[in-house]
């Protein structure tokens, strides 16, 4: 029997795993996909929100501001990309300026630092590509951008190093209360645990409702995004939001930590918790909507589009804590935006709750830091030359758009909770994430995966399951 099973390898589950690994406990994280960071955490705005959106006094507001404040330190300890570039909420109608003032007030109540309203002149000085219509903006210097894969995988790796077991391709089908814990029926067999942490994203209601009479309901709220080439990455230098509406923060335009430009999301409530297909209407809507705040968006530079599902709880609030009528079952539910920002704080909160419940002792061997995958392009020429002398695989470029070497891909495969698929390699190294979208490097990355994992090319997938990349050889049917 495990002490703790965490359901869900998204950013909330992995942050909880990392924080819980500070304690002496037998912990397992189960994830239905073949990799961590494969659901909501991989397809979002990649923003560290300042914290002026959430209702003052809400858990969402508290964890948002805490998470934002923790981000520099956590990004340093765990070595993932984070930049505090600042964000702006822009207002294009004089009569709406009061809404900026409301946001400012809310932000102050939530404890957001350095928040202020700037006039049209200063807004355009800060961000020359804002449209002429922009009359004022709320400027939040504490807003930032983060790599969502980088953060989630960093939490996962650090948790694994500190003893958390990761069971991937493991889908929980049923949960039953037993004496002193729970039995989880999965597609990989039965698992028993004293405590369950339910961090299952859009599925968190399903698991909650298996053990509790007080039902919750989560709606997958789909958001379509367009990612633009790095040549468009400097079009804005802050995250630009419109004024929020009833569906959320609206269509933003932001640089990413990797130098691309991201436009999105839409907000469509759907039923199917797996329906991550983009739609033409969604993509067309983005082009029109983003142009209201930012002028001359180079939408011809789109290199890919994708959709993510926000786990929208009916009351638009994070539900974190032990379920009243299910002792030992801890919800981490309704983690929609600003969930990514809040993740470091969510992790700490969950660890506090669970360690308190179980009276866990500290893990004296806890290692609090983790090094990310070495990025040779950040080295000086001399350092890089030296590296290749020792490790020639760093002299072999596999992804020519992002200039990713074989060395980085090998590192991604062989670290804890390593890459097993093309998408796994992509999210860890960016190989295949550039302007040719893996046209050139796919066959080469597949060969490396097959070689290193000792499997055949026919077993290599894009993202696990049935996502096989080839169906056989040309000789099969002779």
């Amino acid at each position, binding site marked *: 029997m495990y002490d703790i099973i965490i359901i869900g390898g998204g950013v909330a589950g992995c942050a909880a795993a990392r924080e819980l690994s500070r304690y002496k406990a037998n912990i397992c994280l189960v994830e239905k996909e073949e990799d961590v960071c494969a659901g909501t955490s991989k397809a979002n705005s990649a923003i560290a929100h300042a914290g002026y959106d959430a209702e003052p006094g809400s858990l969402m507001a508290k964890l948002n501001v805490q998470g934002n404040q923790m981000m520099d330190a956590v990004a340093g300890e765990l070595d993932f990309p984070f930049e505090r570039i600042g964000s702006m909420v822009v207002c294009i109608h004089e009569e709406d300026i009061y809404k900026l003032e409301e946001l400012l007030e809310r932000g102050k109540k939530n404890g957001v630092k350095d928040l202020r309203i700037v006039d049209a002149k200063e807004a355009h000085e800060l961000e020359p590509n804002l449209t002429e219509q922009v009359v004022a903006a709320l400027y939040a210097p504490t807003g930032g951008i983060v790599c969502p894969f980088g953060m989630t995988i960093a939490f996962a790796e650090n948790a694994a190093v500190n003893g958390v077991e990761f069971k991937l391709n493991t889908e929980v089908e049923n949960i039953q209360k037993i004496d002193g814990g729970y039995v989880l029926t999965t597609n990989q067999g039965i698992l028993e645990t004293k405590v369950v942490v339910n961090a299952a994203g859009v599925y968190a209601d399903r698991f909650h409702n298996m053990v509790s009479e007080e039902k919750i309901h989560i709606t997958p709220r789909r958001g379509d995004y367009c*990612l633009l080439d790095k040549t468009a990455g400097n079009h804005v230098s802050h995250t630009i939001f419109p004024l929020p509406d009833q569906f959320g923060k609206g269509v933003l335009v932001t640089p990413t930590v990797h130098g691309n430009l991201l436009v999105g999301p839409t907000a469509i409530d759907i039923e199917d918790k797996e329906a991550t297909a983009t739609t033409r209407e969604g993509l067309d809507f983005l082009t029109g909507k983003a142009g209201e705040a930012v002028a001359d968006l180079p939408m011809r530079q*789109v290199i890919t589009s994708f959709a993510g599902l926000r786990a929208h709880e009916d009351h638009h609030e994070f539900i974190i804590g032990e379920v009243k009528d299910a002792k030992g079952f801890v919800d981490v539910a309704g983690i929609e935006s600003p969930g990514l920002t809040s993740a470091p704080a969510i992790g700490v909160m969950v660890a506090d709750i669970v360690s308190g419940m179980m009276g866990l002792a500290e893990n004296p061997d806890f290692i609090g830091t983790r090094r990310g995958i070495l990025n040779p392009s950040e080295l000086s020429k001399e350092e890089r*030359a030296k590296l290749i002398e020792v490790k020639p695989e760093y*002299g072999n470029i596999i992804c*020519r758009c992002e200039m990713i070497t074989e060395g980085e891909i090998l590192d991604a495969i062989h670290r804890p909770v390593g890459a097993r698929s093309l998408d796994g390699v992509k999210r860890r190294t960016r190989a295949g994430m550039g302007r040719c*979208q893996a046209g*050139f490097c*796919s066959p080469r990355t597949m060969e490396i995966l097959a070689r290193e994992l000792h499997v055949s*090319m026919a077993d290599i997938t894009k993202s696990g399951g049935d996502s096989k*990349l080839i169906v056989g050889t040309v000789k099969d049917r002779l």
Partner: protein
Amino acid sequence: MLNYDLVIVGGGPAGLAAAASARKNGLESIIILERDHELGGILNQCIHNGFGLHTFKEELTGPEYAGRFIDEVADLKIEYKLNTMVMDISENKVVTAMNREDGLFEIQAKAVILAMGCRERPRGALNIPGYRPAGIYSAGTAQRLVNIEGFMPGREVVILGSGDIGLIMARRMTLEGAKVKVVAELMPFSGGLKRNIVQCLDDFGIPLKLSHTVIDIDGKERVKGITLAEVDSTGKPIPGTEEHYDCDTLLLSCGLIPENELSRGIGVDIEPVTNGPVVNESLETSVPGVFACGNVLHVHDLVDFVSEEAAAAGRNAAKYIRNGSKEPETTHETVALCPQGIVRYTVPKTLNVDRMDDEITVRFRVGAVQKNCYVSTYFDDERVMRRRRPVVAPGEMEEVKLKKEQLLKYPDLKQIIFKVEEA
């Protein structure tokens, strides 16, 4: 730091022909840097025939065509490095490159020839909605998997885009036992060569649906099917024309993009129509001593023309170095080459008669199909040449040859205009 007179970036058909030509024009110190493990570039995976009809008056496969030039480069004892990625080229022509054996190294060049070729337009750039499953390949990636590695990317195939690689792959996949259900093309005309439509689609009974596009992709893990729809004249899908096809593979052949990230790094001007460098009559970019040829300059239809263009680049680079890396003195004004009407661009974009060879070839593509017409050349307002064409089409490159002796008769010439006129 290593020193070479001429560094050629890319060992495909353009780089090879440029190197051979530079050597034959007297240049000793030449090196080709190739990122793949062998010379020949994309030709190595183009195992179909039809190459070399112009150059060798015989029909070769891609590897055979490349082989002729690889042999020539070997006979001429031209140096090359394989598995070598050029990382950066500075404006003063320091080329930074990397491979496993030499690590990171720098070469000071006197002249550089850009011959990096092009890449395929990916699905994302087409903004096709739907899921993002496995089984969506650009046609060239599928070509590599099938022809080089012997793998089948799928068994039931739909192809979007009628570029030449897509047409070739329709035939290739069919010959390997796959069922190619349809080729859809957004435009009302094909982007590929007429001969490929006949030999790769018609001969195998594969339907080509013009003015059609993919509007949805089904299947979360692996492609399960796609939806095609007819598009109106603005490219928008027409409601009610949707057709579903079951398939496990979608191949994309929707255009090629010259790969000019290194060129941009040097600071050369890029022509937005071609996505290639702006060049003069010497195929020299806006940075003196940096030349470009082949598909990095503009996407060609036939490799024969790549070889011809690259030979000119090699010759001009040799001349530049022979001149002490200086531009020759000119007495005439530089003349602009201007595309008009359906002519989309010209390569080169400017011309100075003092610098040109006895004859240069101007190449361009048109933006629409036109039947029974003339390709006309005007020196300012005067039509000086016209050539009858039964048809001009976007899939096929046009060329006009300009002679030095003729140009010298027009000392006050300001611009040369190229247009297609009704016959």
